[in-house]
């Protein structure tokens, strides 16, 4: 072995090297994948799975039930990004649910403050969140909405705020959600480590909390390795009529259009 190849050198700044490497990976993903893609056909999705008979069958299953899809960037925020885009785009085209949603959105900041979130650290996120919602309320064009939502700064702030809504709901309903938190952590610790930080991936517990907090139902189509030719569906909450449709492939969420 080369001399010193694995020697730990305390004078070296490994922290910064690790972070720099992490940034390089994030940048490579960002250059390759838009935050939210244009509308894509399922045949385009199929090109990713040339030699995968099971996934091709599952894509055919989706094709029979959905018109098309949009991909989101695989940066750990995809569930929130996909949900926000799909739901707001829908409000843009049909605003019957708008007044109800806007009221929840406006009130949410005070609820977070009441739960102990420091006002000055959540204010900017809430402000951006409301700005995006108000653009939708004023009926911007679909193109304007797309531009707004794929602006990295705005989009990330929107995602942060959705994460805070989930965190707030989990903490408010702590007695219930504690049963679903793994690793012997408290709900607050779970929120600090798995919900509030950017790039942390979402699980059932995040989806359950978001649908409950906003009153927006989600159907997820699971395209997994199981050998049935169809995708499994799950509705959040169980038995509800969905308004947002998402596609799940291992560790990733995209948007579906029925």
């Amino acid at each position, binding site marked *: 072995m080369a001399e010193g190849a694995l020697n730990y050198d*305390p*004078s070296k*700044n*490994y*922290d*910064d090297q*690790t*972070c720099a490497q*992490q940034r390089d990976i994030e940048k490579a993903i960002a250059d390759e994948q838009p935050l939210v893609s244009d509308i894509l056909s399922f045949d385009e999705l199929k090109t990713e799975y040339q030699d995968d008979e099971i996934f091709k069958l599952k894509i055919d299953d989706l094709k029979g039930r959905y018109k098309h899809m949009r991909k989101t960037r695989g940066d750990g925020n995809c569930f929130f990004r996909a949900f926000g885009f799909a739901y707001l785009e829908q409000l843009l085209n049909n605003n019957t649910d708008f007044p109800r949603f806007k009221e929840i959105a406006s009130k949410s900041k005070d609820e977070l403050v009441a739960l102990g*979130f*420091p006002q*000055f*650290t*959540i*204010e*900017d*996120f809430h402000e*951006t969140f409301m700005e995006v919602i108000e653009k939708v309320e004023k009926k911007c064009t679909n193109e304007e909405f797309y531009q707004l939502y794929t602006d*990295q*700064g705005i989009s*990330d*702030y929107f995602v*942060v705020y959705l994460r*805070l809504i989930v965190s707030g709901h989990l903490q408010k309903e702590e007695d219930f959600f504690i049963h679903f938190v793994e*690793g*012997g*952590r408290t709900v607050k*610790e779970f929120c*600090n*480590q*798995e919900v*509030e*930080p*950017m*790039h*942390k991936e979402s699980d059932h517990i995040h989806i359950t909390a978001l649908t409950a907090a906003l009153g927006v139902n989600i159907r997820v189509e699971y395209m997994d390795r199981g050998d049935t030719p169809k995708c499994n569906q799950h509705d959040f909450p169980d038995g509800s009529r969905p308004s947002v449709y998402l596609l799940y492939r291992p560790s990733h969420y995209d948007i579906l259009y029925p």
Partner: protein
Amino acid sequence: MAGSALKRLMAEYKQLTLNPPEGIIAGPVNEENFFEWEALIMGPEGTWFEGGIFPARLTFPTDYPLSPPKMKFTCEIFHPNIYPDGRVCISILHAPGDDPMGYETSAERWSPVQSVEKILLSVVSMLAEPNDESAANVDAAKTWREDRQKFQEIAQRTVRKSLGL
């Protein structure tokens, strides 16, 4: 993105000026550049570092507060969780997953709702209670664990030095 970071940093500076936590002074090095701060931290009472005034630098990324700042003491300080070059190594300065030291699962992590104040308060607790499980200065951790007397002598020397004595 830098625009929202600047807005947030100005709000935090205002907050810290209006309600300064005990034993901590912090703010931008100059008003031209809000992404570089200087902090003065007083060694907490009843600890090895009591009486010292320790200067540090905080460097904020352009996507703050999505990502955490870095913090580095600019004085000599011998402590298990501070690298020999002054860099502070505590869990709140890292997002989860970005884990050079393998922090324990209950350790508080960086997220956009944390703040400079929370970081500085964590640093004060770190000075009071070193964590030798995730040592950044192996020498200091070993001395802390095995020779408290010597650790105390070194700590008090850095206290005097921090005061220019």
